[in-house]
């Protein structure tokens, strides 16, 4: 069974960068897949990788991480203005971040407007089905 935990933006909005990263990582270390509203800052993404590396052990093998974000090059001028206005009022809630434990999530493919998540269970199942044929 795979568990997803949704983290709305308001839950991390007022946290410091270190606390944001730790909050997300603590959920992932419980073998849950985090689905977060919005995305981390660039530096926070690097911090997440750094702290993940510090935590790696025989039980925790790291994370799979992916972010989808609206392509600003495809937005009209009005959409960009609206987006900036919304960001000013509510914070940067655009996009979606998915973080899963590497022992559950085999890989996340980003393409670039959709995310495909392959779990280790499903890939095993796929292999079994293939063999039966």
């Amino acid at each position: 069974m795979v568990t997803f935990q949704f983290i709305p933006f308001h839950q991390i909005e007022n946290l410091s960068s270190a606390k944001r990263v730790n909050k997300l990582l603590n959920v992932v270390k419980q073998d849950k897949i985090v689905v977060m509203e919005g995305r981390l800052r660039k530096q926070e993404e690097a911090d997440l990788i750094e702290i993940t590396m510090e935590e790696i052990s025989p039980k925790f093998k790291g994370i799979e991480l992916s972010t989808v974000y609206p392509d600003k090059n495809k937005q009209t001028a009005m959409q960009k203005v609206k987006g900036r206005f919304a960001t000013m009022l509510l914070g940067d809630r655009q996009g979606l971040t998915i973080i899963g434990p590497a022992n559950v999530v085999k890989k996340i493919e980003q393409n670039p407007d959709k995310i495909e998540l392959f779990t280790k269970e499903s890939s095993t199942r796929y292999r079994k089905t293939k063999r039966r044929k």
Partner: protein
Amino acid sequence: MKQFFKNLFKKLKFNPFSKRGHVKLGLYGPPNGGKSTLANRICLDWLDEEMSSVSHIAHETREIKIKEQIHLKNAKGKELTFSLVDTPGIATKIDYEDFLKRGMKKAEAKARAKEATKGVIDSIKWLDNMEAVIVVLDATKDPYSQVNITIIGNLQARSIPVLIAANKVDLKKANIDSIKAAFPQYDIVGISAKYGKNLEEFYEEVFNLIK
């Protein structure tokens, strides 16, 4: 007295004593993209010696390696001196069992995994020391990986100039167009570091990168 002024200017982030064109040029990217192969190619071309060991097994480079005083000269007579920094590949997961599958013994695999995690941390910490970076990507692989996006995003956030080297173009599966589509705002040059393909264009791009 000169040292005093050097330290003072360093604190003020202004150093009139530094040699023009002498910069730290970093090689960044995911594991097995060919960073060390490219580092060796550059060093062989300009210093006539190799810099790093290479392997098909990921995380062969697990510590930062620096080669100083690499002196480039182009056809127009323009010259450039830089220090080349070969960094361990950045990854979000490291599983020692992957090394076992490559024929390593358990203790060796665990030690390699531990060193690899430290290498990733060092690579990220060293981002702040770079003045320009070549991101080395395997052109046969999907460029939309979060590691690639995070590396390039962090360089952009630090205003560090970036050149993307789409490596392994000698392979049939190589697809530079997908890298161009993923990172349209960056200069991308297709190369084969292993076979020295398209390196003249690559060196010209390095000159453009470090203006």
